[in-house]
């Protein structure tokens, strides 16, 4: 490829890149601010997953009864607190 053809090919690439970058388009994704409620819902998912893990490990025999009960109580109280805040925000 001679340098002239190289220049022409480069120019075509530049024009294509410019057109693509600035192509007028009205529908682009909006940058919504994540809310406290979004965060709490994510946290809820995680807490439920932690509870599932705990239940499973208990059933697999990794936790003695008293350890399991204590850990589950902690997770459940955390979940209850979280859910009440979610309820409050959803009602608000």
């Amino acid at each position, binding site marked *: 490829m001679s340098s002239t053809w190289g220049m022409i090919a480069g120019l075509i690439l530049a024009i294509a890149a410019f057109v693509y970058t600035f192509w007028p388009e009205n529908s*682009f994704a909006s940058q919504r601010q*994540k809310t406290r409620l979004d965060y709490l819902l994510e946290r809820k998912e995680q807490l439920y997953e932690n509870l599932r893990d705990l239940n499973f490990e208990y059933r697999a025999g990794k936790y003695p009864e008293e350890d399991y009960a204590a850990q589950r109580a902690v997770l459940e109280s955390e979940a209850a607190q979280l859910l009440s805040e979610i309820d409050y925000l959803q009602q608000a």
Partner: protein
Amino acid sequence: MATFGSFALLIALALAAYNLLAGGVALRLLATGQPAPITPERLADTARRAGIACFFAVTAAAFALIYSVFTNDFSITYILEHSNRALPGAYKFSAMWSGQEGSLLLWAWLLATYGFVLRLTHKMDVKLYAYAGTILAAVQVFFLAILNFAAPPFALFRGEIPPDGNGLNPLLQYPEMVIHPPMLYLGYVGFCVPFCFALGALMMRYPGEKWIKITRGWTMVTWLFLTCGIFLGMHWAYAVLGWGGYWGWDPVENASFMPWLTGTAFLHSVMMQEKKGMMKSWNVWLIFATFLLTMLGTLLTRAGLVSSVHAFAQSSIGTWFYVFMLIVLGTCIFTYVLQRSHLKSDAHVESLVSRESSFLFNNLVLLVACFVILWGTLFPILSEYVQGSKVTVSAPFYNAVAIPIGLFLLFLTGVGPLLPWRAASLRAIKRNFIVPVIAFWATAIVVLVAGDRPWHDGAFDSGQFYALVAWSVSAAVFAAILSEFLRGGAVIRKQTGSNLFASMVLLTRRNTRRYGGYLIHIGVVIIVIGLAGAAFNRSQEQELGLHDRLAIGPYTLDCVGFSDDSNSNYDSQFALLDVYKGGKKQFQMSPEKRTYLASQQPQTMVAIHSTLEWDLYVVYEGVNPSNGHPIIKAFLNPLVSWIWAGVLLIIFGTFIALAPPITPTTAALRVPVARTVPAEPAMHGGQP
């Protein structure tokens, strides 16, 4: 093609710069709410599109270079210096990364490719992706600026163009070298993505840990590439360098190992953040450090900062890297100081005997290992700066420190999964540890009975001692992981009524992340078993005339011929050796020494016969000039193939960990939970 390639690189730089500037301005406008003639969202979208277009421009430049190699365009200095007409096709690709300019172009292309995927998938979380994409554009600007101004791959040769090129470095003319550097680079470059997300999340005070979930796939894929790259490099060193080993603590090997260590620490500790909201600052710094270490690795490999058999370029781009690394570090520190209140942990470690603390110890040990290796790697530079003379740190230093650290890490690999979250009671410890402890002692006794003698003739053999500990701990870790599978499988079997193996498969499919991780740990155990075999390596060197014999271990090598050969790419000398075991001929080996014509550099082609028990590794050392007889060196290296098998399991485990889990629907899985938590079907199952 040189003009087109240069033009494409210039366009790529302009697009990356626009992405950085427009993206930055858009994010600023969004954060402050200032009025602007263009909506910030629209501006941010043009920035994102510029990032996508940048990928095509860098791809065009990379294509131009590859095309020039294949068409033997020696008017380009880079092609002249790193290729020649007789170079086989596959190695023409290797020419792209055999020199500094080409490998920087590969870096830029891989980065653009990662950026392309990132920008295409932006709808996952538009704002977070906008931050990450803008930060990534800054890294792109750096590499593209170097390619345009400091190390241009399309620079033209001045003077009369020679009819043929200088050829590729012979060390790179090996099949693995066609994939090892790209793998390593995919690993290096890939860590840029979680880095950009982490920095972006911190800049925008991203609420929650979702960014970790988003980047988990990126981080794991990157980690896998780096792991494969490191082990391919080990295999290449083993098969090509001809010294009988695979890891020599060479600065460039260390450079790839350091981000692997911090990246591994990050992969573990982010689980703590995701699950418990802990170690937030720690994780942010881990990924910052990992990215900086990948930069250091590139600097070591590309700028010839330290001498290494793996460093294929010497140059003056070091200053660019120092400045860039300082800017990155400064940005990280500034952002951290500004936003540190956002990184407060939701919980703390309650007990030293808990899964949280095992993660913490795991991280500390990995970081200590990284620091030791960093210290050893940079010591020649530091000593030259302080004393005026270069003091090199060699393998015994690293082995003395890294082996105990590695064994402790292996121990933690087994302990971690057995410990419960928050705190472990004595009953829980007894219940979970009994099997691994039995496995440990049983293996230790078997290994001692089998002939491992750490103490013999009044002397202490540290190699055999470490092998004993490594195998015993490996057995304990294996038992611990196996018991995890068996216990989980037993629960599923009760629920589904299927057999234990099918239950374990189902268990893995339901929690791919955890059980894929366990498979990776088993892969590590297998690798450690293989590494420990090095304590029993043997070697024998001998000049072999026709039908002379060399005995090593159970093998006898009979020299049945030696000759010279030649082709358009290289001249070679080789020996033909019949290998006998128990008096019976088993196979033939042909170690070789080549001299490449274009570069006039010699290269060893080792002959290796691998079994699960050991490798017979034969090197053509040279020729006795007085009688023309070849000098052959044979090594018997136990358990080497276990290392490569372990890597395959790590790859398999990583794929499992990356696969989406299946969700059980069986109503029978449900168990009641307290009323305080509203019922959610998925939660009550007690499934993994």
